[in-house]
C-alpha cells in the first residue's frame, strides 16, 4: 500500500514562503509527476514527503497515518537522487544492500534481495564493481536498485534522468515506467521536463510559485488546462495566446490555440493572416513561426512535410472546438 495524502502542506525557509498550502491525493500504485519551472517548489515538496525537510504546517498522510514527525527512514519511502548519491567506496552490492544492512537483515537475505533487484535491473554482472567503474545509465540503475530493494510504499524520484544524454534519457524513461507498472508501487517523480511528465505520468501535478496549479491526467491537462500557466506550460511547442478584439468576440480576455490546432492555408484564406518568419522542417513535422501583425508571433504545427518557407504569406485557421478561453485573472472559462 502506498496512498499519500497532503493536507494544506506549507513550507517556509525563514521569511520565504516556498510551499503555500498544497493539497493532494495520490492513489496507491499511481505514477504522479510533479512538474513546473525551476524554483516552483517541486523538489521541496518531494523532500517534505521524504522527510528530508520538516513541514512548517499541514499534514502528510501515508496510508492514513500522519508522518510529519516520523523520521525519513521510518516513512517506508525510498528516494532516487538527482546526483544518484551512490556511496563511492561501496560496491554495487554494498550500495543496493546498505538500507537492508541498516535494517539489520541477515546477510543471506540481503544477498538474495540484492541479487533479485540486480537481476530486475540487468545489473547482475556489475555487482562487485564500484560506482566509478560504471556508466551513467548503470549508476542510474544502481540508484533505482537501491530504491526498489527495500520494497517501499512509494518511490520518490528527484529529477533522476537530468544527468543522462538525450538517447539514454528516453530509454530510462521507458524502463522506469515499465518497472513501476511491474512493481505496482506508488511513485512520485519530479521533473522540469514536460515531455517526461506527459509520457510517464498517470497524473501530473503542475506547480508554480509554490502552489498547485492543476492536478490531473496528462490528457486532461492538455485538453482542459485550468489556467493560462498550465496551458502555456503543457504542450510543445507552447500554446499561442491572443488577446484583444478576437478574444473579446469569444467572450474572453485571452484565447489560446495550440500550434497543432491551427490549420495552415495559403494566403487569402479565411483565417488569421501573417508572414512566415522561420520555418522548421523536421520531416515528421513542420513548425512555422508566423508574424501575424497585431496578433504577435504565432506558432503553427503541421504533421508531415509542408513546402512553405520564410517570407511566404499564410493564413491560420483555428479549430473552433479547440480554442481555450481564459478570463482576466487567467482562469479557464468553460462552456
Amino acid at each position, binding site marked *: 500500500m502506498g496512498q499519500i495524502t497532503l493536507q494544506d502542506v506549507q513550507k517556509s525557509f525563514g521569511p520565504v514562503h516556498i510551499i503555500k498550502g498544497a493539497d493532494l491525493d495520490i492513489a496507491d500504485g499511481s505514477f504522479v509527476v510533479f512538474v513546473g519551472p525551476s524554483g516552483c517548489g517541486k523538489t521541496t515538496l518531494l523532500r517534505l514527503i521524504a522527510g*528530508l525537510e520538516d513541514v512548517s504546517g499541514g499534514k502528510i498522510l501515508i496510508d492514513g497515518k500522519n508522518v510529519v514527525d516520523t523520521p525519513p*527512514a521510518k516513512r517506508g519511502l*525510498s528516494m532516487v*537522487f538527482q546526483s544518484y548519491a551512490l556511496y563511492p*567506496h561501496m560496491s554495487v552490492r554494498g550500495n543496493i544492500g546498505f*538500507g537492508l544492512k*541498516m535494517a539489520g537483515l541477515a546477510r543471506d537475505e540481503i544477498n538474495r534481495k540484492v541479487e533479485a533487484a540486480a537481476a530486475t535491473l540487468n545489473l547482475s554482472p556489475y555487482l562487485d564493481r564500484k560506482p566509478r567503474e560504471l556508466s551513467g545509465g548503470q549508476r542510474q540503475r544502481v540508484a533505482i536498485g537501491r530504491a526498489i530493494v527495500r520494497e517501499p510504499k512509494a518511490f520518490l524520484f528527484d529529477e533522476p534522468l537530468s544527468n543522462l544524454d538525450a538517447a539514454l534519457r528516453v530509454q530510462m524513461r521507458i524502463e522506469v515506467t515499465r518497472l513501476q507498472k511491474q512493481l505496482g508501487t506508488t511513485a512520485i517523480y519530479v521533473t522540469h521536463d514536460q515531455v517526461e511528465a506527459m509520457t510517464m505520468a498517470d497524473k501530473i501535478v503542475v506547480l508554480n510559485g509554490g502552489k498547485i496549479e492543476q492536478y490531473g491526467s496528462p490528457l486532461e491537462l492538455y485538453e482542459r488546462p485550468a489556467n493560462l500557466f498550465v496551458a502555456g506550460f503543457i504542450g510543445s511547442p507552447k500554446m499561442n495566446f491572443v488577446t484583444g478584439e478576437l478574444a473579446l468576440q469569444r467572450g474572453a480576455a485571452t484565447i489560446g490555440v495550440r500550434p497543432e490546432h491551427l490549420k495552415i492555408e495559403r494566403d487569402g484564406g479565411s483565417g488569421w493572416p501573417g508572414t512566415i518568419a522561420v520555418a522548421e522542417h523536421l520531416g515528421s513535422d513542420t513548425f512555422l513561426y508566423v508574424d501575424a501583425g497585431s496578433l504577435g508571433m504565432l506558432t503553427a504545427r503541421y504533421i508531415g512535410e509542408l513546402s512553405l518557407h520564410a517570407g511566404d504569406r499564410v493564413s491560420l485557421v483555428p479549430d473552433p472546438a479547440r480554442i481555450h478561453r481564459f478570463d482576466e485573472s487567467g482562469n479557464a472559462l468553460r462552456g
Partner: protein
Amino acid sequence: MATRQTQFLARSLLTPAVGLLFVWMIVPLALTIYFSTLHYSLLDPGSEAFVGLENFRYFLTDPAFLASLQNTLVLVGSVLALTILLGIPLALLMDQPVIGRNFVRLMVIAPFFVMPTVSALVWKNLLMHPVSGLFAWLAKLVGATPIDWFNDVPLFAVILIVAWQWLPFATLILLTALQSLDEEQKEAAEMDGASAVSTFIYITLPHLARPITVVILIETIFLLTVFAEIFVTTGGGPGLQTTNIAFLIYSQALIQFDVGSASAGGLVAVVIANIVAFFLVRIVGRNLEA
C-alpha cells in the same frame, strides 16, 4: 606541449629553474657525504683525514642512536594518533552550522601560525612550569601535587606540545574534506535508515580515508625532524629521554663538535626517513589511488 617546437621551448624555459634546484640540493648532499667520510672535529681543526665508514660505525653503535630512534618513532606515532583522533571530532564539530563559525575556525588555525620556539616557550614557562605554570595552579586548586612535566614525563610533554601545534593542520584538512562530502549521500543514508553513528562509520569515515592519508604523510615528514620544541624545553634530556634523531645529530655537530659523525648521522636520518616513507606508502598510500 603538442608539437616538437613547444616541447623544446618548454624544456629550455624550464632548464634554469630545474638546474638551480638541482644544484641547490646536490651541493649540500655531496658535502654531507664527503664530510661523513672524514675525521672532522671542530675542536681539532686541521686534523681532517679520510676514515672511510668509521663515522657511520661510530654513530650507529652509539647507544644514544637506538634510544633516539625509539624516541623519534614514539614521538611521530603519538602525535599522528593524537592529531587524527582529536582532529576528526573537532572537524565534525566545526562542520556544524554554529554562530561565529568563521571566527571559531580562525581560532583553531591559530596554533599553526605560532613559531615552534615560541609555542614551546609558552608551554614551558606559562603552562607546564611546575611552580608557576597554569597546570600546576590547576593541580593545586584541586589539591593534587603539580606534575613536573619536563622531569617526570618529558617525552609526553614534548608530544603534547607538538600535537597541539599540528592539531589545527589535521583539523583543517579533515574539515575541508568533510565539506566536500556530498550532502545527497548523507540524505541517501538517512533515507536508508542509517543512524548518525552508522552514517559516520559507513559514509563519513570512508570519505575521510584519503585526507587522513594526506595528513599522515605530510605530518610524518615534518615530525621526523622535530627540533625546536625539544631544544627549547628539555634540551634532549633528562638523559636521552627526549633526544630524537634530529636532536642527536645537532648534539654531535654543535655540542660535541664532531662534524664527521653528525654528517654520517644526517645520512642515516635520510635513510630512516625513506624507510618510513616506504612503509607509509605501502600501508596508507593505496588510499590515494583512484
